């Protein structure tokens, strides 16, 4: 705790010193700036502002029909020398250009109008090249800084929820730092770990699998993007179809997430500081029984079973206090976690060189008992330089993040919420864990392990340097060199007082150190030329990449005292030491040829040849490629003449192949590892030298339209991805020695669907603007082919023509009139229930999902809110009444009258019936939801009142996350809805201020 306080104080100090520094630099700058006199023409000065009156730095002010021009300073000011009769052209990305006649004036202030709809102007990062919204042939979705920078989230992925068509983000849990799941256009691979998209940060691929941890987050792992500063992200592009992803070849099958961090493009120096703080809670509670109701249900169970409760079968009725009541949900997750974020950016530059230096601090607590938190400190630096002749370019970006995650050790939290409400106290009065009351009932204290704590120190360094040189008109050479280094140290402290008397009670610690390093070298040649109306853009390049990962783990036992835990010299023994290193190498050649005729007809060809060390020597190389084409039909004279309301119309389509090599390294090696016992070697998995790439063939067709001067824009795409040669942990009967082997499955999985993206400007006046954007996706997942499925080990898992993640369940047959228990149908009438009776397909895939985002601004106020929605089914299984587990209140109807639930009973027969009914459609509920996922409200303090204190801009904002959920689902979070008890997104409300100097 003291440490935390110190680190916070340290951050504040850094910010204050930074601010002072900026002030002093600014005052110096003020002294040295003197405008140069120029005698032949007049010198014009002025300030360029946006409609809010905020200065626009970096805008181009040029003299019409000449090559002369200048850029505006940080304050939006410019000065230019021009003939008294000239016309000034002011342009800036995202604003409508304006022309103003000088008319001999020496001071001209100009207000620019935003041009959000400028399709041609919005540059899109397509990875190895840039394109524009207007001319792209592939499917690329984009989220920009404005939409995500204020969200109080740890990983940028969490900020994407509901914002992009075809992109589904599911939270990994309620602990800060846990990895979310992102799926782009559904599940392509049967392996859970084979469905990660490729993450690329500033051109450098990042290993997208979650970082391993021993802490409570060990199921989901830690998000590898945690150490990025969300506020420092310029844009996130998601590449979806073949045209966009084929240039990533073997790694593009699951889509590509391109993260671009901010760089500075402007002159002069500036400083931006932003601070916010907030609080998070678990948004709802389950409706469980109170003590009186619970005990009635339990007594009824024994009454129904004709059994006398005793200490063995009914500790809650016989041993425990009958009047005690604890709200276990409140106890477990009733807390409030606080979030703090501080951000400081210092930037500057001139025509040729600019830089941006930033730092941030983020901390978030947990809602669980105990003093645990997550902290991160990030620093980033970017530098751009262009030589005077514009031929040589260098671009450097460095991101460094330290992530300190203090979590409770691995404690089974979820079981606590459903403890009998009269269960004894977890803690004794002196604060130690209460063992006696629990062990008397033959139970472990449910907070067994509570004093365990884990600290994960994760350092992440990502750097990339890009050189480019224009060799000749149209031909340039580019090379990017990236290096990443992620090292993490984790210590799990296991003090003796934390473990049950059923364990050896010593003070132990468990250590996990891991390191992931990679470098990548990508030389490229770009060639661009116009041949009359034909425009050609091409790239040829190569990739060499090496990742090396290592981890080591050990356990230290027998520290004399708890205070010494972690001090290895004080440990009695060091056991279970293991280390592992893996190396992955990857090489590729790639090329792209993009051609267009008159900027109307576009064709884009991409190809890649890949080699990966993850495959056996005979299967290392493969080729991938795609073709994309587009026709901007609104440019045709006929359309222009007859359909004048149509401001833009494009048809596009693409087809191509991508691959997937996301499997463990060395799986093809027939190898032995060390046993846990000393001196032994054993085969830890089956080896298969013959597996090869998973191939994903993607087809897409789309139409994009805009009406009424782009006020309404629509994009509708249809896609069909066929993933074959499925690389899976092929399920084997365990009589073969193991329950799976890495192999290619002769199956074809199809993901198809429709995606609609629309945006409208509902209202636009000088003071008020309201824009809505909408996206919805209708994904379909289907196993379309599997030769000889009946003879395979998947015969009873999958059904051809149905999605992959179905459950095959029993047919629910109502309540058995004789026993009063759930009955299921014995399909083959063999008197027992097994897989042969599981014929009902239970499908919990999403039918559609999407989001509606509204952005409103009124004078100095702005409001943005995002509704997220999804239609799907979920499961809800908290209705097991009669056993020592607190059920939902729904089952109370069973006490006296009839209900749809089975007779309250604690017998094993009832237990079996309950387990069986979980495998039917009985627990399936509609888990569709509509959620107010994010809402932010901002106020810009008028410029006039700021000038006096020297601020350029000051914005106050409040932000809410997961504020409201409308759902028929009875469990905690419809988004997860596995049993009903899972906690996903927290509700967070935060507020803060942003200051620009």
């Amino acid at each position, binding site marked *: 705790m003291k440490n935390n306080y110190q680190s916070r104080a340290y951050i504040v100090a850094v910010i204050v010193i930074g601010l002072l520094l900026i002030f002093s630099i600014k005052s110096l700058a003020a002294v040295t700036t003197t405008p140069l006199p120029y005698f032949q023409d007049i010198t014009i000065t002025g300030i360029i502002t946006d409609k809010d009156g905020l200065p626009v730095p970096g805008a181009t002010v040029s003299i019409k029909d000449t090559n002369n021009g200048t850029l505006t300073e940080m304050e939006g000011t410019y000065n230019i020398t021009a003939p008294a009769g000239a016309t000034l052209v002011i342009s800036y990305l995202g604003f409508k250009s304006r022309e103003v006649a000088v008319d001999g004036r020496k001071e001209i202030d100009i207000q620019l109008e935003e041009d959000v709809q400028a399709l041609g102007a919005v540059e899109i990062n397509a990875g190895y090249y840039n394109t524009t919204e207007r001319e792209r042939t592939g499917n690329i979705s984009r989220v920009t800084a404005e939409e995500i920078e204020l969200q109080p989230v740890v990983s940028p992925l969490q900020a994407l929820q509901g914002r992009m068509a075809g992109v589904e983000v599911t939270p990994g849990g309620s602990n800060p730092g846990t990895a979310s799941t992102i799926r782009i256009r559904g599940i392509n691979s049967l392996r859970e770990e084979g469905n990660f998209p490729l993450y690329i940060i500033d051109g450098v691929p990042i290993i997208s699998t979650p970082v391993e941890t021993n802490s409570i987050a060990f199921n989901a792992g830690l998000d590898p993007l945690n150490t990025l500063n969300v506020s420092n992200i310029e844009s996130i592009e998601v590449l979806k179809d073949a045209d966009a992803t084929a240039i990533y070849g073997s790694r593009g099958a699951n889509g590509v997430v391109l993260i671009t961090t901010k760089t500075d493009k402007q002159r002069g120096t500036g400083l931006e500081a932003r601070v916010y703080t907030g609080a998070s809670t678990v948004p709802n509670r389950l409706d469980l029984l109170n003590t009186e109701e619970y005990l009635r249900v339990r007594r009824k169970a024994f009454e129904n079973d004709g059994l006398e409760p005793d200490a063995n*079968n009914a500790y809650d009725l016989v041993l425990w206090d009958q009047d005690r009541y604890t709200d276990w949900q409140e106890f477990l997750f009733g807390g409030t976690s606080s979030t703090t974020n501080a951000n400081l950016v210092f930037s500057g530059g001139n025509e040729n060189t600019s830089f941006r230096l930033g730092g941030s601090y983020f901390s978030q607590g947990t809602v669980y008992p105990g003093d645990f938190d997550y902290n991160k400190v990030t620093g980033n630096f970017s530098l751009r330089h262009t030589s005077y002749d514009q031929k040589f370019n260098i671009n450097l970006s460095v991101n460094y993040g330290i992530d300190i995650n203090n979590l409770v050790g691995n404690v089974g939290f979820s079981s606590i919420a459903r403890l009998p409400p009269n269960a004894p106290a977890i803690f004794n009065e002196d604060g130690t864990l209460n063992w006696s009351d629990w062990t008397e*009932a*033959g139970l472990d204290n449910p907070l067994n392990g509570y004093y365990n704590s884990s600290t994960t120190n994760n350092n992440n360094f990502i750097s990339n340097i890009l050189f480019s040189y224009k*060799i*000749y008109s149209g031909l340039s*050479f580019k090379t990017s060199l990236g290096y990443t280094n992620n090292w993490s140290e984790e210590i799990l402290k296991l003090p003796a007082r934390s473990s049950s*008397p*059923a364990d*050896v009670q*010593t003070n132990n610690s468990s250590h996990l150190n891991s390191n992931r390093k990679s470098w990548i070298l990508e030389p490229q*040649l770009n060639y661009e030329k116009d041949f009359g109306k034909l425009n050609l853009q091409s790239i*040829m*390049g*190569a990739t*060499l990449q090496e990742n090396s990962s290592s981890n080591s783990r050990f356990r230290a*036992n*027998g520290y004399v005292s708890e205070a010494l835990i972690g001090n290895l010299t004080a440990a009695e023994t060091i056991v*279970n030491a293991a280390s*592992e*290193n893996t*190396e*992955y*190498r*990857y*090489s590729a*050649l790639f090329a792209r040829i993009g051609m267009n005729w008159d900027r109307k007809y576009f064709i884009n060809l991409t190809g890649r*040849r890949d*080699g990966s060390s993850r495959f056996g020597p005979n299967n*290392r190389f493969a080729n991938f490629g795609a073709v994309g084409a587009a026709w901007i039909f609104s440019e045709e004279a006929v359309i222009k003449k007859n359909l004048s309301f149509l401001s833009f119309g494009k048809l596009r389509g693409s087809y191509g192949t991508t691959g997937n090599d996301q499997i463990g*390294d*060395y799986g093809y*090696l*027939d*190898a*032995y590892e060390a*046993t*846990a*016992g000393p*001196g*032994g*070697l*054993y*085969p830890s998995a089956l*080896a298969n030298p013959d597996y090869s790439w998973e191939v994903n063939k993607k087809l897409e067709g789309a139409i994009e339209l805009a009406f009424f001067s782009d006020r309404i824009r629509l994009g509708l795409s249809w896609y069909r991805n066929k993933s074959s040669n499925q690389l899976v942990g092929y399920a*084997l*009967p*365990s*009589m*073969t*020695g*193991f329950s799976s082997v890495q192999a290619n499955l002769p199956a074809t999985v199809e993901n198809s669907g429709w995606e609609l993206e629309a945006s409208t400007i509902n209202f636009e006046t000088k003071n008020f603007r309201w824009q809505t954007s909408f996206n919805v996706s209708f994904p379909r997942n289907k196993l379309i082919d599997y030769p000889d499925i*009946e*003879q395979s*080990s998947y*015969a*009873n*898992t999958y059904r051809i023509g149905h999605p992959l993640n179905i459950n095959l369940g029993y047919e629910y047959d109502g309540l058995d009139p004789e026993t009063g228990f759930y009955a299921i149908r014995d399909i083959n009438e063999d008197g027992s229930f*097994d*897989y042969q009776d599981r014929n009902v397909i239970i499908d919990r895939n999403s039918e559609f999902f999407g989001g509606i985002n509204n952005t409103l601004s009124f004078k100095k106020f702005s409001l943005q809110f995002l509704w997220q929605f999804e239609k799907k089914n979920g499961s809800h299984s908290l209705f097991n009444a009669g056993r020592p587990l607190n059920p939902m209140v729904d089952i109370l109807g069973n006490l006296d009258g009839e209900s749809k639930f089975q007779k309250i009973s604690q017998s*094993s027969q009832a237990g079996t019936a309950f387990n069986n009914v979980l495998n039917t459609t009985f627990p399936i509920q509609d888990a569709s939801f509509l959620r107010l996922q994010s809402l932010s409200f901002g106020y810009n303090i008028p410029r006039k009142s700021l000038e006096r204190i020297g601020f350029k801009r000051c914005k106050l904002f409040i932000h809410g996350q997961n504020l409201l959920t409308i759902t028929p689902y009875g469990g905690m979070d419809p988004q997860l809805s596995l049993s009903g008890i899972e906690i996903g997104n927290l509700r967070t409300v935060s507020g803060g201020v942003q200051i620009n100097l």
Partner: protein
Amino acid sequence: MEIKLYIDRFVILFACFCFSSCEDFVEVAPPNNKLVQQEVFGSNETAESAMTGIYNQLFQASYINGSSSSITYLAGLSADNIKNIRTTNLDRLQYEESEIIADNDYNLNLWSSAYNIIYMVNTFLEGVSGSEGISQELKIRLEGEARFIRAFTYFHLTNVYGDLPLLLTSNYRENELASRIPQSEVYNQVLDDLLISSELLSDDQEITERTQVNSYTVKAFLARFYLYMEEWEMAEELSSEVIGNTADFEILDELNQVFLANSREAIWQLSPIGRGGNTQTNEGNLFIHSDLLPFFVSNALRADFLELFDETDKRVLNWVGFNDLLQEHYVYKYKIWLSNELPVSEYSMVLRLSEQYLIRAEARAQQNNLTGAIGDIDVIRSRAGVDLIANTAPNMNQTELLNKILEERRMEFFAEWGHRWFDLKRTGRMGEILGNDKPLWEETDLLFPIPAEERMKNPNLTQNPGY
């Protein structure tokens, strides 16, 4: 023009660089924590390590390690010596009630852990036989040890499940859809392996750690095999050989020393060192009612079983504990409930000399050598401190004596290796005895079900009747 040429060359050079750099680049060396199979069987030392690996992994394998999915525990619950107490665990109750469901997790653990060991042995045998880097002498010994472990495992599997898929290669493509073959053929394979093993292992080998298989381990198990096959002469011959090796084996007077590591009564033991952590046996942890947590228990000895013993029987005095709070008796053969002390003081017993005496007693009785049989059974009774049959009933007839031997086995081997369950089965008394004991008993409960998950993945696996 010159510039153009220069550019052309540059592009060509660039392309060449790209193409040439790719192909070799993606070769990587294996990681430091893995050893490729060829290397494992490339030298004596690493091949020995692979054998040590099998012994270590045996202690991780549920079926053999005395844990809650072991034959010891599950066959024990299925018979009539031990019972569940204070447990709400349905999966365990199913054994006691003889109402096992095909997707019982314990059952799947038992099955898959056994087949995992069979895979290890198969791949080991393939590695050893194909190796050129291992000395001939070592090859012979390693093959002998490995074959024994395979025979031991199949023997128990077939006694639990009946007909079995008999897998003798590590090739999963061949194995994944294998069907069950008749029990008699499984027994033939078990016998083959045991005979080869017996031939390969030398009688002269010094016995130091009793965790390592030696020729007497094989002989002792062959004696049991012939007993089950009702080949009495062979059973007698082999048990006599083992009993005759007094240099290595003896019946210990002190009962509390029987289950210690490398005790002289032990013929084969498994060391908890294979766990790589705590050093108590699984049996100790599972059966002992700890003073620390007297309520934290799952099983106890049945009262009707304890009634069989004389009050003076040392086995009750030494091998049975009493929980005051619950008023229950528990198995107390192993004394250590929880430990992380080194060196390991108790090993998990697999084969011990007492069994050889009772095997010989039974074999002799079957061959009508009643005096010889009484002599053998009395060795065990004498150690237990109870009246000798030679004194009390020297004229017992054959049937009475066989019954007496069966009862003696029950009292001697309770909570060890499912002896009671298998004895009832091989002597055809299971229905008669358990039918009276368990209300839900059916004749088909003699065999455990083939795990449902296995049948899901291998459609050629049939189910045992009654499941």
